[in-house]
């Protein structure tokens, strides 16, 4: 399918409440033509509700959803022409594999011969050529996942929705399928909205990630930006491990417990900020300190041997606990030892202190 056949999605002021519980709060979202966008959030954040509204299964209270130029918010699900992969696949147990994949073709009045050919093409695409006559209960979880995908794309929808399609698979298969789904998306180029609560999955697959919490989109950006430049504490904590310490910014610069810190970029306002520390960006400094590395003195509380590395727990001067990985091949620090932790200025990223913590 040509990429220009894909449709952009424009969501405006989309709102849904169940009683007093606001599931979606005036959500605005733009999914670009042919983009792989992931809705990432904890359970109950509203990400699945948003996806179900795109598919037409949940009726919003108000708002607007446009596929391309066309407003679809009041359109019945069967008229929306979007493909969808369900979390439990929802493959019809009373039909064989070919019957399942041919189902949308039959409904569109496509002739038997052409349908047969397209079913086989779709099966080839998901690497299950020749599986048409299998019964659904003869398939493994991974195979069902692929058949569900084949069924969702066989009628060439211009938008593809996926609701945690990999959550039922084991870790190894999941990682494999992530890459395969990503490659398939690159081949087909349909606008894809993908829901997951697995941050690594989101980082691996997406062009952009929309982080959702309590019915609001907290940040929408590329995986790299989301990980390295989160705009708020929720995003920083939800994606990756991080520790926060409070630092002060004034005209002289940024200080942590009196220790001056070099920053990647100077914030505009003065006042208290959160310094986001990703453990993997910390290092244990030996004697010499190169320029552009901030030095944080710390006291080791525990060192845990883990085979490939040693996990060192240490407390910073303000009492905050941080963990850092040290190579197992060098001398392991011992509890009580004082050492210096290094954090590159480029990784020294400040978050504004939010008025009301969520």
């Amino acid at each position, binding site marked *: 399918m040509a990429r220009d056949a894909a449709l952009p999605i424009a969501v405006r002021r989309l709102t849904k409440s169940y009683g007093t519980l606001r599931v979606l709060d005036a959500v605005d979202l733009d999914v670009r033509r042919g983009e792989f966008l992931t809705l990432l959030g904890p359970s109950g954040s509203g990400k699945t509700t948003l996806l179900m509204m795109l598919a037409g299964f949940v009726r919003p209270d108000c708002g607007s959803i446009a596929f391309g130029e066309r407003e679809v918010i009041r359109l019945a*699900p069967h008229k929306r022409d979007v493909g969808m992969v369900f979390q439990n696949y*929802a493959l019809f147990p009373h039909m064989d594999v070919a019957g399942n994949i041919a189902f949308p073709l039959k409904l569109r009045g496509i002739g038997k011969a052409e349908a047969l050919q397209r079913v086989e093409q779709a099966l080839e695409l998901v690497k299950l050529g020749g599986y048409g006559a299998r019964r659904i209960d003869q398939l493994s979880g991974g195979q069902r996942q692929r058949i569900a995908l084949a069924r969702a794309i066989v009628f060439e929808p211009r938008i593809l929705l996926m609701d945690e399609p990999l959550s039922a698979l084991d870790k190894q298969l999941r990682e494999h399928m992530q890459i395969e789904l990503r490659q398939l998306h690159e081949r087909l180029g349909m606008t894809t909205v993908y829901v997951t609560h697995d941050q690594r999955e989101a980082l691996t697959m997406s062009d952009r990630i929309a982080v959702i919490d309590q019915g609001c989109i907290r940040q929408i950006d590329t995986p790299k930006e989301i990980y390295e430049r989160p705009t708020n504490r929720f995003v920083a904590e939800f994606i990756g491990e991080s520790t926060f310490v409070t630092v002060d910014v004034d005209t002289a610069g940024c200080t942590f417990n009196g220790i001056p810190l070099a920053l990647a970029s100077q914030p505009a306002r003065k006042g208290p900020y959160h310094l986001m520390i990703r453990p993997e960006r910390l290092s244990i400094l030996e004697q010499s300190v190169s320029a552009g590395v901030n030095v944080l003195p710390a006291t080791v509380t525990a060192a845990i041997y883990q085979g490939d590395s040693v996990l060192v727990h240490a407390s910073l001067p303000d009492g905050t606990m941080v963990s850092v990985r040290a190579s197992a091949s060098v001398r392991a620090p011992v509890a009580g030892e004082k050492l210096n932790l290094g954090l590159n200025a480029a990784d020294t990223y400040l978050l504004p202190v939010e008025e009301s913590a969520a």
Partner: protein
Amino acid sequence: MSHPAGPNAAGLRRDALVERLTLFSLSGPALLLVTMTMLVPVGWLFWLSFLDDAGGFSLEHYRRMLVQPSYGRAFRITFEISFITTAICILLGYPLAYVLSQLPRRAANICMIAVMLPFWTSLLVRTYAWLVLLQRQGVINTWGIKLGLWDTPLALVHNLNGTLIGMVHIMLPFLVLPVYASMRAIDQDYLKAAANLGASPTRAFWLVFLPLSLPGLIAGALMVFILCLGFYVTPAVLGGGKITMVANRIATDIELFFNWGAASSLGVVLFVLTGMILYLASRIVRLDRLLGGGGA
């Protein structure tokens, strides 16, 4: 059988045997009861059906069934009534089960109690209650005429109509229960998937919902049909003597003619026919399971 040799092998084997015997002995009283009250009398009746009046072996009772048209008529009407009752139960019960399956669980449970309520009343009482409702001066005819729906009293009872009304009323829960259960088991995502793939609600029903609820429908219909085959009280009371099903014929043979052999042979034939229907149906249902419908 080769027994592994080794320390304590014999003792462990003995323990396993004792355990099994102990478990089996728990079912002993029930087994005894079934043998005494079911197998022995049924076996005895089976035996009787092959004896002539003098007590010698004979196929006379079975021959008479083939020759005398009244017997054939009893079987035909039994199957006809059972079939019509089953069909009406399906027409009434399937939509009812569908509505119940779409309700929230609490509401569905309350409605289900209403469906089950007739079960808590004696069958005889219900049958006579219908007699009161349906007769010429009964509630239904009185009100129908009062409201101007019809002019002369309808013949609602002492005929096929009354028998069917009574039987459908009694049999309906037997259909609704399994159909409801199989509908509840249908994952709503199947219907969402059907809609998403382009099926209008009507087509989603015919292409997805109905096939998935079919195992429950077959089970329910089968149960109704087979239970109908043995009906006695309802046709006797509401049929007004005009409806002679096999069970009524058996009663006549015993009460009027005191012919245990003839009655037994009727019972045996009905039993065998029922068994055959069950067997055929089990083949069909199993076939259905083979196609994956049973997994839902």
